[in-house]
């Protein structure tokens, strides 16, 4: 007889693995990727590839030469961070800026904290916000989308325009009534992704497809995305009713500025979101509120990235004060 294995129970294991989950999210992002190539052409491809590759490379180099530990690049999380970072920047961003972004995401925000699972803040978003504040010019000039069937959009020197949110912000600041602002795409265009913006944030339909896929494969639960979207819808709806000239309507709010990308793919990042369902709801609602507040009153036209980062900081507190309901805990006193 061979030597038997002895281990404590349980002796069987579920099918999900870290790799599987990460690759699952990557798969869920494929539709978005395709739409972005459709509208932004070469740029989308180059930015995405360089971001993903550099993120993976940085992680490899850090594990190999600085931490001198086993390389972790195969688990897919670095690639995912790279991909999401790319989805959060304009498709005409110069290469060197992308490299800085993915370096900040991987080295500063992830590996400094100990790598996968240890970071407090969403790496891709830290990378993005770092870039946004460091290189505001490059980070806020968005190529105008052109369907690939008409013409393949080149990488760096595409014609640029503003995002719908920037248009609105600009207009409202100048006291123009919302209904009179020029150049806002139709809801349908926004739904399929025919508008200016970061390359992964534009295609609502593709993002929602990804959400469905992740829900079906039980990669994520509904709590975070639904609570974010619901809050944004209700909160911005109320403000819109209060002053339709100044505050945009809920549909517009949901379809623009990366709300979907943020709610579905970035706020749900396991590592940086709360552990209990109650916590997830608190987290989601807060992100929704912050997003609307930043959009309506702050300097930045879009607020999801900041809202998620700010709430990332609150996650330890949320975890501390919203424990799951223990079995046998006394019901209401």
């Amino acid at each position, binding site marked *: 007889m*061979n030597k038997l294995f002895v281990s404590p129970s349980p002796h069987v*294991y579920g099918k999900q693995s870290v790799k599987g989950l990460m690759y699952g999210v990557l798969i869920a992002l494929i539709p978005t990727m395709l739409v972005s190539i459709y509208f932004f052409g070469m740029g989308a491809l180059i930015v995405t590839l360089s971001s993903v590759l550099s993120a993976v490379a940085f992680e490899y180099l850090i594990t190999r030469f600085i931490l001198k530990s086993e390389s972790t690049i195969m688990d897919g999380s670095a690639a995912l961070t790279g991909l999401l970072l790319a989805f959060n920047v304009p498709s005409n961003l110069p290469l060197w800026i992308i490299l800085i972004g993915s370096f900040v995401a991987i080295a500063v925000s992830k590996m400094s904290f100990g790598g996968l*699972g240890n970071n407090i803040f969403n790496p891709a978003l830290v990378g993005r916000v770092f870039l946004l504040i460091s290189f505001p010019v490059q980070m806020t000039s968005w190529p105008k989308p052109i369907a690939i069937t008409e013409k393949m959009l080149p990488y760096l020197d595409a014609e640029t325009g503003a995002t719908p949110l920037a248009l609105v912000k600009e207009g409202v600041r100048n006291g123009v009534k919302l209904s009179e602002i020029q150049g806002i795409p139709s809801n349908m265009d926004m739904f399929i992704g025919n508008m200016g913006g970061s390359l992964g944030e534009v295609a609502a339909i593709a993002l929602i497809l990804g959400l469905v896929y992740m829900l079906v494969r039980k990669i994520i639960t509904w709590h975070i995305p639904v609570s974010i979207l619901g809050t944004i819808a209700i909160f911005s709806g109320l403000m819109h009713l209060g002053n339709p000239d100044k505050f945009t309507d809920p549909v517009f709010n949901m379809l623009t500025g990366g709300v979907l990308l943020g709610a579905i793919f970035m706020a749900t990042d396991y590592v940086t979101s709360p*552990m209990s369902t109650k916590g997830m709801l608190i987290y989601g609602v807060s992100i929704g509120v912050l997003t609307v507040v930043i959009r309506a009153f702050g300097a930045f036209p879009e607020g999801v990235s900041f809202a998620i980062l700010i709430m990332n900081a609150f996650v330890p507190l949320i975890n501390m004060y919203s424990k*799951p309901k223990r079995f*046998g805990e006394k019901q209401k006193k």
Partner: protein
Amino acid sequence: MLKTFSKGGIHPPENKLTANKQIEMLALPKTVVVPVAQHIGAPAKIIVKRGDMVKAGQIIAESGGFISANIHSPVSGKVTKFDKIIDTSGYKKDTVIIEVEGDEWVDTIDKSDTLIKEISLSPEEIVKRVNDSGVVGLGGATFPSYVKLMVPKGKKADVLILNGVECEPYLTSDHRLMLEKGEEMLVGVKIIMKAINVNKAIIGIENNKKDAIEHLTTLCQGYDGITVVPLKVKYPQGGEKQLIKATINREIPSGALPIEVGAVVQNVGTAFAVYEAVQKNKPLFERVITITGKSLKNPSNFLVRVGTATSNLIEAAGGLPEDTGKIISGGPMMGKALLNDQSPVTKGTSGILIMPEVESQRRKMLPCIRCAKCVSVCPMGLEPFLLMTYSVKKEYEREEKERVMDCIECGSCSYVCPSDRPLLDYIRLGKSEIGKIIRSRKA
């Protein structure tokens, strides 16, 4: 919607390979090795001498305290040796070794198959008989059953819940028992009801045993106050807290016993054992054991004498497959991995599972990605990832505050973790260290 418990739970592949295999008698072994500690609580004290001739059903070791149980000889033959034999934990424990000669039972046992419905004994007598017969819980914890039949002063039970859930994958011994000995079991239920003075009993059965549900539902018509409740298939529904929640929607408070919410839980096998003890005067020395495994030639349900070596069962089921990597006593979720195939089966053995080598090895542990899957499956509402961290960092004080002692060790968390973290291993470590601290605090 089928009833089930509200929080957490998983659904591992069921793999009930032996669901349709009738219970067979396993041939008597040549020798039996009977451990004196087969139950929770104090080990029993040996009362036979070397060389003594014993009959099946004869008491060979006496209960060693309030929480303890008598041990009876499972066979007839000669006591050849008292020895310390490596048990399932690898540590040496006291055993009685008996060389089998014939199969002579103690006279008082009614060996017939006839069903005796009449319950003639008084509750006190029932408890005494159950105690004398060495009946312990067959659901896995091997808690001396008579203790449970004595409702503590000031407490009142109003319902008896029968645990026919058998939520562990692979195992089918309770399932078969319910099908084949349903009538006897129901009488056993009646006896327990009488002992604890309740007039309501619920049999909880998971919906993957439709035949048993049907069978017992029909039989129940003849028994007042007993109902069958089909339950959604979800592990660990068999845990008593979960079962009580699922069937009567009551939650046992942290650290309390079922009686706190007026319930008593017994395994269906225990009910059958009670029937045999009370109506047939037969002590507990044999039980139904499932021997199963994907590469096993002939997975079966056997009626096995306590003390039979595991290897005997394996032989009877077609021999140990080449690719064996692990032998587990019990189910894959809660069972204990055996060091070798020599250890004897005990009253608590509900199954022997042979796992092929490819499935036996754990995957490499990765860092926790805080995916909260363990939190969402924990039926006790705990945060396993946190408990493990506290164990690793030896932060036992905080771990205690996170209610680690509530963990029922169901293993759902380890099962589901995508990072393959040995959550339960470390939680157990925490529980045992904290247990020590709590005891020292009381002392």
